[in-house]
Each structure stands twice: as C-alpha cells, then as structure tokens.
C-alpha cells in the first residue's frame, strides 16, 4: 500500500514535471548516450538496450516508460510493413508566436518532425491505418499539422475501408497555434464520425499522458478504448483542478485504473500483451490483411 502511494506521488510529480517543462522550455530530447536509465518508479538501473527490447517496460516493477513514436512503431509493426504518410509535413507559425518557430526548428534539427506519425501498416498481418502520437515533441500537443495528418489518415482509412488504430498521448491543444489548434479537435472528430458512419473499426490506445484537446476529441470516441497501466488520462490537468477546488485530489485520480472503474475505458492492457490483444480484436472484427 505504501508503495502505491509512493508510485502515485511519483507519477503525479512526473506529470507535473512534464507540464512544467512544457511551460518553460521543452525538455532536451533524451538522446540515449548513457548505458543505463533509472526507473522513475522503483529507482532500479536498467540497461537501455534491455529497455528497448522489453518495449520500454521496467523489468523490476513493470513501469511503462514513455515511448517515442518511432520506438512504438518498431514494437508494433511487422518488419517493413509501414507506409508512412505526410512524413515531411511540418508546422508553420500561423500566429507568429514569439519563440515558436525557433522551437520547431530545434526539434526538427533533432529529427523529430511533428507530434504524430501516421501511415498504413501491418500488425501481425492485419492491416491498419495507424497514428502514433509522440510526447517528445512539444508534449504531443495537437496543432494544425497533427490535425491535418490525422485527418488525412482517417479520410484514407474511410476511403479504403481500413480499420483505424490510434495511440494517443498529448498534453492537449498546442497553445502556440492558438484558436487554430482548438479547431483541430473539431476537424479530427468530424473525420472520425465519417469513419464511424462507414461501419469501420476504430481502436484507440490511451498512453500516458493523454489530456485536454486530444482526450476531448478523437481519442475518447473510439469503438474500443484500451489504456496502458497507470497511464494518466483526463481533461483538465491535476494542477489546474487542484488550484480550482483547493482540495487534495483523490488517490489514483485520472489513472487508467480510475477511468476503468468509472467506465471510460474498455480494458487496461500491459504493453507486452498489446500486440496479442490487437490480434485477437482483429480476428473478432474480421480485419483484413495478409493474415
């Protein structure tokens, strides 16, 4: 029980740290130069290589590390079976927000183009239109490019009658793109509606953290909603809620387990079982592909 509290505290601290780093300066991208990574939950030193092989799950305590979109795709997709879409679509600075262009340029220089990668790919031989968001790029925030890339993917899925699989992670709307970011919620959700009306399958996997404009748009209207263990998911961030209500938040608030209990996710699936779960769901929904 004591561990549980410790973990929760740590997670909250973690998330607040991320929120804070988003406010100040985006954290430097973690280039894996060191050999070890320390688990934020149990403090065990883990070999980076082992971490990558183990889908970035701590072998000691099962803590799920955040994954880059590239690592996620590598862990899911059958080798060589991913046709990426709009890989080079990059954000411009529609509001001429101070410092934003520079920030984008810095991230792009490190090889990160945007906060989502989209394409058509095979998972265990089942073909999906796949989007993977990346919290390493401006906290996975949804601006015009994320909206546009998602809509292009969803519209193609509708046209080609493909099921849709989205891995969500986001701090919310991209405030540097102001009101245009807010409108991406409407855009993506409208495209999802057409996909839904066409009778096609949409699975969304909520990973930590999923908040704001993403949780309040395409991410929570899927046919099947899966969450990763202990993922933090909500609309308003815990800090804002605490400030508003001036009370301590309930234990486990906004965790995947909390959402399962409240009825907002279908299941919590540990990362190591995800591909197997997708395979089972694919069979149940007669998803096409080479399989």
């Amino acid at each position, binding site marked *: 029980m004591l561990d549980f509290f410790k973990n929760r505290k740590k997670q909250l601290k973690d998330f607040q740290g991320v929120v804070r780093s*988003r*406010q*100040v300066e985006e954290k430097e991208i973690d280039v894996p130069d060191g050999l070890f990574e320390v688990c934020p939950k149990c403090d065990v030193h883990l070999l980076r290589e082992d971490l990558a092989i183990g889908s970035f799950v701590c072998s000691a305590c099962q803590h799920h590390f955040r994954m880059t979109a590239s690592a996620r795709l590598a862990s899911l997709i059958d080798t060589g079976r991913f046709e990426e879409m709009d890989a080079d*679509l990059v954000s*411009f600075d*529609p*509001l*001429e*927000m*101070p410092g934003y262009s520079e920030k984008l340029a810095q991230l792009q220089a490190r090889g990160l183009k945007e906060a989502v990668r989209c394409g058509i790919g095979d998972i265990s031989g089942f073909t999906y239109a796949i989007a993977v968001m990346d919290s390493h790029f401006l906290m996975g925030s949804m*601006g*015009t490019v994320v*909206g*546009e890339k998602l*809509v292009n993917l969803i519209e193609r899925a509708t046209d080609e009658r493909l099921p849709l699989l989205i891995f969500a992670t986001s701090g919310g*709307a991209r*405030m540097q*793109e*102001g*009101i*245009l*970011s*807010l*409108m*991406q*919620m*409407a*855009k993506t*959700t*409208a495209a*999802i*509606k*057409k996909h*839904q*009306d066409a009778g096609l399958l949409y699975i969304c996997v909520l990973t930590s953290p999923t908040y*704001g*404009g993403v*949780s*309040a*748009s*395409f*991410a*929570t*209207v899927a046919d099947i909603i899966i969450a990763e263990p202990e993922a933090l*998911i*909500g*609309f*308003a*961030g815990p800090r*804002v*809620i605490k400030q*508003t*209500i001036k*009370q301590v938040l*309930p234990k486990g*608030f*906004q965790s995947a387990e909390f959402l399962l209990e*409240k*009825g*907002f996710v279908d299941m919590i699936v540990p990362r190591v079982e995800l591909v197997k779960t997708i395979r089972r769901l694919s069979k149940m929904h007669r998803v096409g592909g080479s399989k």
Partner: protein
Amino acid sequence: MDLKEIENQIEHLRNQLAGLDENDVKMQKLRQNLAKAIDEMKAEVYQNLDAYDKVYLARHPKRPNTKFYIEQLFDDFLAFHGDRLYGDDDAIIGGVAMLGDLPVTVIGHVKGTTLDENVKSNFGMPHPEGYRKAIRLALQAEKFGRPIVTFVDTPGAYPGVGAEERGQAEAIARCLMIFMGLKVPVITVVIGEGGSGGALAISGGNHLIMLEHSVYSVLSPEGFASILYKDATRAKEAAGIMKLTADDLLGFGIIDEIIKEPLSGAHEDPEWLIPALKEALTSRLSELMKLSAVEVTEQRYQKFQKMGGLKR
C-alpha cells in the same frame, strides 16, 4: 489605464453632468462641454480597443447573456432539462424556440447576472451533464428536422473532480462528434467568452457568428500567460498575441460573420444589435434549409476541414 478605469471615469463624468441643473442658463456651456468631453473620450477609447479590452468587454458583468438573447430573438421558448443519465446542468440551457414561425432548437451556455444565478450556473462552466444534455437536444432537433442555434458564452469546461469522474473529456468529444454529423443546419453565435473545449463542444455550426466584442480562444489569456510567462497577471500581454478577437477569427476563416455592437459594448444598449442578429439568423437559416441533409453535413465538414488547413 485599463478599460474598467475609463468606464468609471466616464460614469463619473456622466454623474456630474446629470447633477447639473438643466434650467440654469449659466451652466449651459459647462453642460455642453462635459457632454462633448464624454463623447470624445468614448469615441477615442472604444474605437481603439486592444485585445484585452475586448476580453474585458466579453466578460463584462453587465454583458447580455444567453437568456437575454433567447428572450429578445424568439417569440416563444420552452426550456428542456436533464441529460437522462445523471442530472441537469444549469450551465447549459436548452429547449425549443420560435424564430418567427420557424421552430428551432436552442442550446447555450448560461452566465448569471446575479451572484446567485452565477453560483447556480457555475459561472457558465459546464459539467459533463451539460454536454450530454446538448447531445440529447441536438439529436432531438435532428429527429424533428429542426435547425439549431447555439449561443457560446463560457470561460471553459469546469476543472473539477466530479467533472473528471463523470468523463468530461468523453462528454465534450462526443458532443463535438454529434454536432459534426448533424443533418440539420446549425448556427453558432459567440456572444461573450468562447473558452476552449467547453465552448467548442457546442460550436459546430454551419455558420459561425461572433458579436463584435466577443472573444474565442484555446484557453484563457490568464492560462496562456501562466504557461508562456509563468505569470497569470500578464494576461493583457498574452491576449495581445493570442489572436482571439472576432476580427482575428474572421481573418483565419474560422468565423463567417461579425455582428456590430454599440460603441462601448453590448451592455451599453442590449437591444441595439437584436434586429441585425435576428436578420442574420433568419436569412442564414433560410439559405441553409434549402440544402439537403447530406449537403448540410458536408458543408459543415468542409468548413471545419479548412480551418488551419495546410493543403486544402
């Protein structure tokens, strides 16, 4: 000097003017000068409002609210309550109204005019039940082929524990999705503050109107300032770069139309803009109602897809 102080000054001058004896010939000149000074001050101030002045006017405690517009624009209105799932949210009002002889479904955020009203309506910040009531009424409108008019006036969704426990994110998302697919025309009017997802949830219009001094933004200038400058008191500066005024949004192609307000804001003469707004609603709806159900949905879809679009 901020707009509130200027308002107080003008008010002070007006009181002075009112205090002067109208029949005193010797005061004639002074009265004229005072009246002239007031007019000049107003003209100068209100013709050069910055973004934060507009935020101030959009949130003005005397600004006409959704209930006022419902009363003024429609000949009859019956409010419907409840989401049929959990409760009734006073932050969102909904029902059926008569626009001339046309029945329309009306949905809008409610800000109170008194403290009691504000407490009851949670200062216009909905809980999940509000969005779910909106969903229910929107689908009902679709069933009966009624067009929908929504009024937007909210600081945003309520950041509370209960709201999260009852799936605020899902409620907003579903409301948004339902609106995006509606087969009946929707007109959205931003009458005050359009704040974040709480505003967007009921803003899925085929035609979007903003009153001249209303604002619409991804988050409040205070929230924006606390993120960008780590200092919520720099809201004025934040508002200046956020592009949240009606002119900004018209420039981005997000809204379609701006309805003029009296010089110093809608509260100065609340009924002043009613004829123009009523005419806009009536004529836009009659155009939209000529479209087929498929065309209505597609027109809205394409409209939103263009927002912030990079390739279209």
